[in-house]
């Protein structure tokens, strides 16, 4: 089979895996708790009682929602399937480990995209205006893919307990939210705070959001997009390379 035909074949099969994930995992307890309820309560606890306008709140809420939702499915699928004893069957099918990972990332990506519409709708309802909807849409698509790939990195350790993976993910996710300009815009952070913020991919998406909604981005859009692309490639490569080593050890 020619190389391109093989790639298309595996892409189609990864979409089948994504559809299976959507059917099974979107309403699982850990996904709803870590992907939806946590960011909502975290945001409410920060905003209630403060005099914040919608323009400054919505980019942060959008960034946090996208980050938590897009990283909620991809970490749990592999350990869940290993525990439920469906992974061995899947691994014996004519799909590569990369195809399996891409399917899980695609399901997480779609979950992130869908739920990111909620803060946008909320923002439009309270009267915000989006100066560059196309750029924001592109940023949401890219960031959702980036965060979903990061989620797959969380599940590399060969544990078959989804709760352990969620714990590992939480150890990374919560600090990331606080250093990424969600609650305090980048240009209001001290120099050391900005230096830390630059190691988080969420920083660059939030910066694009602030640029498109508030008109006050801290970095040039090209830099934000470029770094998000670099993070996405890095997370995907790490996930695929290391899952290839650890996935057989789950069986």
């Amino acid at each position: 089979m020619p190389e391109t035909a093989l790639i298309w074949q595996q892409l189609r099969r990864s979409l089948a895996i994504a559809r299976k994930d959507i059917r099974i995992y979107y309403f699982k307890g850990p996904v709803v708790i870590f992907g939806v309820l946590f960011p909502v309560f975290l945001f409410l606890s920060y905003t209630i009682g403060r005099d914040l306008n919608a323009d400054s709140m919505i980019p942060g809420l959008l960034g946090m929602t996208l980050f938590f939702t897009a990283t909620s499915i991809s970490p749990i699928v592999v350990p869940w399937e290993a525990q439920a004893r469906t992974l061995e069957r899947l691994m014996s099918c004519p799909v590569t480990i990369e195809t399996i990972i891409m399917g899980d990332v695609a399901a997480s990506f779609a979950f992130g995209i869908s739920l990111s519409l909620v803060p946008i709708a909320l923002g439009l309802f309270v009267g915000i205006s989006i100066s560059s909807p196309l750029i924001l849409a592109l940023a949401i698509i890219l960031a959702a893919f980036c965060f979903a790939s990061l989620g797959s990195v969380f599940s590399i350790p060969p544990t078959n307990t989804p709760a352990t993976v969620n714990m590992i993910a939480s150890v990374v996710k919560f600090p990331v939210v606080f250093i990424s300009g969600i609650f305090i815009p980048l240009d209001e952070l001290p120099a050391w705070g900005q230096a830390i913020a630059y190691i988080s991919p969420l920083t660059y998406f939030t910066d694009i959001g602030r640029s498109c909604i508030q008109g006050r981005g801290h970095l040039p859009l090209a830099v934000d997009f470029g770094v998000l692309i670099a993070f996405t490639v890095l997370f995907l490569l790490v996930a695929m390379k290391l899952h290839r080593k650890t996935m057989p050890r789950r069986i």
Partner: protein
Amino acid sequence: MPMGLRRDKPGTAGKGSGATDRRARERGGLAVPGDVLAIEVDGLIKRFGQLPAVDRISFGVRKGEFFGFLGPNGAGKTTTIRILTGVMEADGGSAFIMGHGAGSLKAKQVASVVPEMANAYTDLTGWNNLMFMAELYGVQTKQARERSVSLLQALALQDPKDNLVKTYSKGMKQRLILCMALISDPDVLFLDEPTSGLDVQSARLIKDLLRDLNKNGKTIFLTTHDMDEASDLCDRVAIINKGKMVAIDAPERLRMATSGRHSVEVSFNDSVSPESLASLAGVNTVQKVGDKYRLYTDNPGDLVVALVNHSSAARLKIVSLNILAPSLEDAFVAITEKEAGYA
């Protein structure tokens, strides 16, 4: 390439090769030129730490053959299947499925597996599980639907097909997993203990279907603990113990080659001490089986005479007396015990 099959690049298990004469010997007489092998394994090695789970095993399975793979727990059966189906990588040796390196996409495309510990997706319906598998094997939707209907019917699952699998019994789940394995119409079917712990009806349905599949040309590789099942179904069986291949032959030939495992089954009209039976000439072992005694011997004819003399002397009446050839189970026990150094 002695077997007349074109082979593509080996996959995860395709490393190295062994000597031709050793390969021929270990394949159990499969060195006949022109034999077309569906499964070809040569010097396969897999270690977990220092422990060799599979230790340089070699064998071949002909196209259309029903091949049994037997061994005690921890012998290396499941590890071998996992390497052959691409779930695990071998540390050495080579394995080919229909000429394709085990673990390659081509090998996975032509084979399918019913893993020992596997489950279907319990949050999907039986039908959705089948459609998902069909998508992963690239089966056209129309064909997938037709095959699903026919498989569900053959395995008595048509009624609950739209129920979530979490509502299925163990037997129903296992039958569904077999349907999932067959949705791609594979050339080679691997089954790891498919009837283990199942009710009689489910086990019989599965065995009947396997017989039909084999009759229609499918190559079947079966691991089982059930010796009767292996004896009933398999053209040849291999016995693996502690990762090493210890025997490979037709079940009947393995049975007959087991010396000292012929037995005489006898019952008397009164109680008899097993010690008195064990003291008879030519008796190797005495086993109580219900109200009968089974006496293992190398020479059943002489033992019958000894039993008749013994019953007369002890004023006992023989109620029943049967000479039994060794079963495959006897052969299995004898071979694995010998390997373990008990015999």
